[in-house]
């Protein structure tokens, strides 16, 4: 092997490895793992254990110093009306009718792996933290509320009645408590162990184990494992005791079941923000190409105008030359037949007639 051949081989090896490197991130992206914090925490909400006692609501209200509610937390009739989270209630427990049985579900921010709110915010207020929480920095919030449009779970609330500093409010995953090594308020308060706190990867294993141990009790679907790109808070739902067994992890067949719990399985497995990336990706293309396209159109217009003008002038010149040639021919003929004097008179008369016509034409154009 000579030196040249060796270098060629080396070079192609370099290209191949570069291609390999380029291919790796794209396959990683295909499984939607950004931003993925492997150590992040989550909470598993087991609705089969929830009894709708509203202790979590009470704890949330207390640890976050939220205003006192209209009805006390021990009034359980509140659960019967459908409520949503708001600026003053960061978590609520609703009662749902699922296949004829009452099932309670706690609503709060799902703390998505790749949050729609963070993708939608144009002032970068939202951030997915390595501990799993999605935090909100109100000091740079413009108050546009696009996060609330974007959130597929209807989680954030807005302080509409605040005049001077209205902000978006939602569950913080009790981030200040997590930082101190404490459990979120609601998890700590739950008397039924319906809320399990842990690393998200572990929680998925826990959920699978519960489903495997009690296949008749649980619907074989971990809501939030993949939905909307995956969420830190996940939900287990009870199986329909009378209905047919639903194959595992099937969003289409589990859909009607979970819909009764107010959960949407049609969000897809991609983070919601990715739906906009195609449109955003077209922006540089348009910025680069439109000036060329329209500049070209302008150039063509200019060229066409110039050619049109040139053609017009050409026609005019030819017409003038034709007339001149005809006049010359006529004058020559008169000179031959009627002599020099008549030719001079004819030339003069024709020149005057042409001039008169020209000035009349000019006048006509000018009017």
């Amino acid at each position, binding site marked *: 092997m000579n030196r040249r051949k060796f270098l060629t081989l080396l070079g192609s090896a370099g290209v191949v490895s570069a291609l390999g490197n380029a291919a790796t991130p794209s396959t990683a992206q295909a499984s939607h793992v950004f931003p993925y914090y492997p150590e992040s925490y989550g909470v598993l909400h087991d609705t089969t254990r929830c009894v709708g006692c509203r202790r979590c609501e009470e704890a949330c209200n207390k640890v976050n110093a939220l205003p006192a509610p209209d009805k006390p937390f021990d009034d359980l009739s509140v659960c019967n009306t*459908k409520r*949503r*989270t*708001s*600026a003053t209630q960061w978590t609520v427990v609703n009662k749902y009718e699922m296949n004829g049985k009452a099932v309670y579900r706690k609503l709060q921010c799902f703390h998505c792996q790749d949050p*729609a709110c963070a*993708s*939608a*915010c*144009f*002032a*970068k*207020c939202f951030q997915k933290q390595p501990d799993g929480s999605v935090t909100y920095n109100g000091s*740079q*919030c*413009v*108050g*546009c*509320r*696009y996060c*609330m*449009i*974007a959130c*597929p779970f*209807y989680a*954030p*609330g*807005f*302080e*509409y*009645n*605040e*005049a001077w*500093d*209205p*902000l978006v409010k939602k569950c913080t995953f009790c981030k200040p408590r997590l930082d101190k090594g404490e459990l979120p308020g609601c998890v700590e308060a739950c008397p039924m162990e319906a809320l399990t706190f842990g690393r998200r990867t572990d929680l998925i294993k826990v959920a699978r184990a519960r489903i495997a141990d009690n296949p008749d009790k649980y619907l074989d679907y971990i809501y939030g494992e993949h939905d909307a790109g995956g969420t830190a808070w996940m939900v287990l739902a009870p199986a329909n005791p009378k209905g047919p067994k639903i194959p595992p992890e099937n969003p289409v067949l589990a859909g009607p079941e979970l819909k009764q719990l107010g959960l*949407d399985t*049609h*969000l*897809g497995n991609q983070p*919601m*923000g990715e*739906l*906009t*990336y*195609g*449109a*955003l990706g077209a*922006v540089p293309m*348009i*910025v680069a190409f*439109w*000036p060329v396209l*329209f*500049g070209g*159109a*302008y150039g063509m*217009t200019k060229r*066409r*105008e110039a050619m049109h003008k040139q053609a017009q002038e050409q026609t005019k010149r030819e017409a003038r030359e034709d007339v001149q040639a005809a006049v010359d021919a006529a004058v020559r003929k008169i000179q031959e037949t009627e002599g020099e004097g008549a030719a001079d008179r004819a030339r003069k008369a024709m020149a005057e007639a042409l001039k008169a016509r020209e000035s009349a034409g000019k006048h006509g154009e000018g009017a």
Partner: protein
Amino acid sequence: MENHSIVIPTREKMFNMGPLLKPTLGNIITWIILSVGLVITVIRFTQGIGSVANLDDNQPWGMWIGFDLLCGVCLAAGGYFTTVACYVMGMKHFHSAARPAVLTAFLGYLFVVVALLYDLGHPLRLPFMFFFPGTTSVLFEVGLCVATYLTVLFVEFSVAPCEWLSNRFPCVLKWRTFVNKINILLTIFGMTLSTLHQSSLGSLYLICPGKLHPLWYSPFIPMFFFVSSMAAGASMVIMEGFFAHKGAHAYMDETHLRESDTVVLSFAKAASFILMAYFMLKFIDMLVQANFSYLFTGYGAWWLVEMFGFVLLPALLYAKGSRDGNVKLCQYASMNAVAGIVLNRFNICMIAFNYQLPSAERYFPSIWEVMISVFVVTMIVTAYRFIIYHMPILYEHPDFKDAH
């Protein structure tokens, strides 16, 4: 010459406020709306959004975004549409339509921003998007493009105030000469920015497939917004021309009057083609997204009303009007088309949004929200009137015949 009666401001008499201050019925209504609007403005900014608006956590964007922003931007598309036709495509006979179109576009965008301040929780923090740019957000792109395009429109429009002010301040003529030199750059830049943000207003809704009804949600929604904005631009030029002829006929010069019918008929023809294309796009999209079965629901009926009554019908009316040289029919069609655009934006922002929620949780704008929108429109009309009474918009200033 027919323009002998046009009041052209001179050095001695710079202002021509008479038509704005005369106690005619129109002016009295204007004053009432403006005063009511001011009162609501004070309430809004001292008591919070909730004190005047019915917006809630489920419906964070209502009348103000749906009408003032989505419709406002779309209906101001006449600016790019006319300037591109006139300057880029070389359709010189639209020249007299270019300035009014640029003016309405500039006012449209300016008041879109004004109206937006009502809707924002922290209006003063609007520039924060440049300090903390959320580049993954469609709204960032919209904000960036609208801010830039508003600047471009201001520069394009600024030649008119320059001609007005040159009586007193001849130095502004240097700016005017400069702007005339870069006019084609501004036009192409404006076209690029318009393409981007007209379409991204639609892209805003790409992120919420679960909330917007499938008949209106589509991955192609940016394209629908852009194509419909072209039709809106052409239609608004025709409609504004109609109202301008009603109210400001005395301020139009011979060229404007001579060209105005040609403008109406040509724009009607263009709008007819664009609306037909839009109809086909929407229809094919409905089939491709397998939404046919939704047509037999209540929302489907409503979608068909929008598509046939407010897209196909104006397209056909435009076609007939431009073919027969019937200016009146074209003007009627333009109102039908504009109503269709407004209906489409309302459907996306309010009517088909949150379609899955029970009706008790749905949104209906409060009278005060509607009043703010009416207030904003009245401000636009008043500003437009002030400008055409003072600046050479509908006529060419005798000192500046070189404009083209």
